[in-house]
């Protein structure tokens, strides 16, 4: 029996974690969803008797769905990453091996992140191909939008891993992740904008930069009158968004890692 380095073990863990996604249904559900979005975007304008938008607007149309895709991706690929082993008992097989816990944690996170990034990249690739097919042009900003979407996804994945190391059931972890990003943060953001406050500390409100990066000039935060209310239309800058991403991702990952190291299999 030869000595195996931590790096080699990390690669092994990542390989088999990725195999999990390739052999599971979740990846194909996401790819199917991407196909449905693409088909809808392709069918709706002609069905309504309208022409396709120009190259910039076409890709922006795709980008506006990216934040919802990210929430679905982290729910499907990240929420059960850690909790599954502890709930189902697979930890009884994997963990009593001569592998450091940090190697397992990093391997699981990186594989979930890479597969998720791959799905996002496939979505943007499909959008770019369709845009090129229709408008014979793809704006360069598409790449920046994709990178911001990946950054946003990394942040949400970090928070998701924290939830996954904390919860005791995969179902509870998935429900909490989805509800937190899809409902709770959106509600807080909604309330804050209605009362005219900038929701700069709400992570989901940063997702607008994914679309805004492709708009020239970059949209600014404005107040609009809606009846008796003056509602804030919040457009964080890229700098603010990156800072908030880091503000969520770093402590979440650190806490998740710490919790994982201390997590006991009872």
């Amino acid at each position, binding site marked *: *029996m*030869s*000595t*195996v380095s931590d790096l*080699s*073990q990390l690669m*092994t*863990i990542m390989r*088999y974690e990725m*195999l*999990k996604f390739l*052999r*599971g249904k979740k990846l194909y559900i996401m790819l199917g969803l991407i196909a449905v979005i693409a088909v809808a975007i392709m069918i709706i304008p002609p069905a309504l008797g309208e022409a396709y938008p120009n190259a910039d607007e076409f890709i922006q149309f795709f980008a506006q769905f990216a934040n919802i895709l990210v929430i679905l991706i982290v729910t499907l690929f990240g929420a059960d990453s850690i909790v599954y082993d502890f709930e*189902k*008992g*697979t*930890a*009884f*097989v*994997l*963990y*009593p*091996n*001569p*592998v*450091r816990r940090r190697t397992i944690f990093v391997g699981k996170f990186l594989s979930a992140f890479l597969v998720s990034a791959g799905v996002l990249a496939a979505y943007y690739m499909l959008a770019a191909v369709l845009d090129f097919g229709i408008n014979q042009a793809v704006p360069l900003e598409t790449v920046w939008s994709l990178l911001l979407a990946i950054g946003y996804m990394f942040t949400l994945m970090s928070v998701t891993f924290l939830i996954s190391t904390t919860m005791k059931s995969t179902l509870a972890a998935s429900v909490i992740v989805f509800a937190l990003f899809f409902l709770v943060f959106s509600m807080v953001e909604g309330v804050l904008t209605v009362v005219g406050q900038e929701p700069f500390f709400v992570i989901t409100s940063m997702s607008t930069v994914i679309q805004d990066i492709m708009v020239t000039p970059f949209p600014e935060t404005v107040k609009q009158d809606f009846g008796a209310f003056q509602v804030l239309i919040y457009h964080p800058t890229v700098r603010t968004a990156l800072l908030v991403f880091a503000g969520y991702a770093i402590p979440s990952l650190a806490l998740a890692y710490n919790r994982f190291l*201390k997590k*006991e*299999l*009872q």
Partner: protein
Amino acid sequence: MKYKKIYKSMHNVHTVVTMEPAIKLNNLTKRYTFKILALKGISLEIDQGECVGFLGPNGAGKSTTIKILTGLIRPTDGTAFLNGHDIRKNKKEALRSVGCVVETPDFYPYLTPIDTLNYLGNLRGVDGLDGRIEEVLDLVNLQDWADTRVGSFSKGMKQRLGLAQALLHDPQLLILDEPSSGLDPKGMAEIRQLINKLKHEKTIFLSSHLLSEVQQIADKVALINKGEILAYDTMRGLSSKLSSVQEATIETLSPLTEEQLETVRSHPIVKDIKLTDVKHYLLIFQGETEECRMDLMRELIERGIPLTAFTPKGLGLEDIYMEMIQ
């Protein structure tokens, strides 16, 4: 750390091989909550090559001990060493030559046994992995399901796969938690046969609730209850520790009269005598040795008791277990 030395003589050259105990627990304590103290400072030393059964009722602390030994949980206090390596300070080295089956293991349902063993074999750096996978699948009779996804496996098949992964890297030490759990009688017998074969070449620490299993496999037994090790000895040693009070069934030529019963009771080492059937009695007495029993038998005959048979009841593991945990 205490070292045990084995002196080997080869061609007049003496070499000293230092051998650590396979398992060494020092004052191991585990507190889950303020109220639940699962282990109360247990200490245990298992030498290389021994096959030790770990017995105790539910909640005694067996699983907690095994989980600490395999790095799944941390002790509140105390230390656990595997082959001389502290499991907390050097988990990677401590588990290098250890194979474990902890509780009823579950496997990733999307992997086949070959995938699973490849995964774990790559993590451990097993040389000649493909051939070794074939060997262990053959050992546990899973060769026909080698390419079937584990998701469709029964509990018994998963248990076999658990054993296969524990043996994959040919470890020095096997830690087995209820190894025959979930198996049918034929499967249980096969696994016991396999463990019996393995015990000649490996150190085995086996927890089981099946007393007969431990009795058939283990050379030594550690009894645990309420987080404390009650006894750790060979079967013979345990039996002699507990056998100061013995039982025997006696048969008489005719039913004993009240007077004869009193005569028996008045013997200095007899504690009691109870009628079990016509002319059959259960005699409870104090005395550990064969000589003691012979003296008792002779003296009862001399006192006019018409004995026709005297059968001492052997103290099985179950008796020892029951007496110890009560």
